[in-house]
């Protein structure tokens, strides 16, 4: 079980989050500026919470009482942010395999093929980011996040630039990949359909406060109304 209890001040916003989740899909929604992305950044280790603890898969990632913060590179998270953050001087292929040795790339050849086919980016692999649409860049960033086989996936509106048809296919494919990897996925989304299809848990954020809902049909209906 993963435990999250953090307090963090970001500008004028005071973020309070207290939740637990297992290896499941959590969809986070809420109005703009509610603290959704800030919460993902705390989990990724890009910001250190002012106070609290984060414990994932039995490992402590953050414990402010003992001044312990685990580095982002040791958390084994895969991240996709609203901005795809692809390096412009590398091809899509090189962006995906960044940080993996030549030997590692040989070992992961089948995995890369599966990702590339599932995300429908076969034809884009030799292109550089400037020659990709925002939707294509988002899918390449998703492939990069998954390629390292992370223990947790943090997604900030990963389908926002996708056309409706491909968005639906991506949801189904990614759901299968999550089950295959048995990892936690925390996904910020404004799309009620994402929550309906993917969410095991819904978290709703309002002015920095995290409201956790269970995954019943009634909860889902309530979430839809809130979203």
């Amino acid at each position, binding site marked *: 079980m993963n435990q999250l209890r953090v307090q963090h001040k970001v500008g004028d916003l005071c973020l309070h989050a207290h939740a637990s989740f297992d290896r499941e899909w959590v969809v986070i929604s809420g109005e703009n500026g509610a603290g959704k992305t800030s919460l993902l950044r705390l989990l*990724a*280790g*890009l910001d250190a919470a002012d106070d609290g603890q984060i414990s994932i898969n039995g490992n402590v990632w953050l414990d402010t009482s003992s001044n312990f913060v685990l*580095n*982002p*590179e*040791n*958390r*084994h*998270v*895969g*991240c996709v*942010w609203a*901005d795809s*953050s692809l*390096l*412009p*001087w590398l091809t899509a292929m090189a962006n995906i395999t*960044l*940080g993996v040795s030549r030997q590692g790339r040989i070992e992961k050849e089948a995995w890369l093929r599966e990702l590339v086919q599932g995300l429908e980016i076969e034809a884009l692999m030799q292109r*550089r980011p*400037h020659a990709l649409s925002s939707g294509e860049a988002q899918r390449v960033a998703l492939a*990069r996040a998954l390629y*390292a086989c992370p223990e947790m996936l943090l997604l900030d509106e990963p389908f926002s630039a996708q056309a409706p048809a491909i968005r639906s296919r991506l949801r189904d494919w990614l759901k299968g990949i999550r089950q295959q990897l048995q990892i936690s996925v925390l996904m910020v989304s404004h799309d009620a359909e994402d929550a309906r299809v993917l969410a095991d848990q819904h978290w709703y954020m309002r002015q920095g406060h995290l409201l956790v809902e269970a995954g019943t049909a009634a909860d889902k209906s309530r979430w839809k109304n809130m979203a």
Partner: protein
Amino acid sequence: MMWEALFISLKLATVTTAILLVIAMPLAYLLAFGHFRGRTMLETIVALPLVLPPTVLGYFVLLLIAPDTWIGESWQAWFDSTLAFSFSGMVTASILYSLPFAVQPMQHALLAIPKNWLEMAHTQQLNLWQRASRVILPAAKGGVLAAVALAFAHTMGEFGVVLMVGGSIPSETRVASIALFELVEMQQDSRANQLALVLLSVSFAVLTVVYAVNRRGLAVGVRP
């Protein structure tokens, strides 16, 4: 005299730039991203040669490397020669004198790297070496090239500091700028013109490279 002095200048500029490339990158990284006490002090020390008269810097370096100092004594013991009034002494002084010209373009290039690229490198589990070689250096390539060009050109044109530390020993420490001064003093106008023209051409070429690189946007690696 003229070609020999030019060769010493080129050798001095090459050695100084090579050493500065190794020293300046970590220093620029520290100044761009480091949070530590004394950061402002370190930044001030690095920038000091920009405003300090070269003769003052040369004088302090000379005091530092004199044979009766710890550095001078150690050098003498290891290499059986004095550091003052030698090519090695000039290299030491040139490194200090050209330090801001190498550090500052790199520092600015590092600060211009988009934050999300650096964060991505962390979350993609890249270690420090991988982050440096695969993200930071390619992104700051323009700044590194500018630093190399400026450090080289600046060392080529040094006068006061190399005169203080190296003197003007023929075939050893007489660099092109000092040779030019001496040619003018001896009223050898034709040779002085030639040497001045060569120095002007080198400076012009180096600056052209710097501006061309910057215009292409290599400083932040934004162009394919």
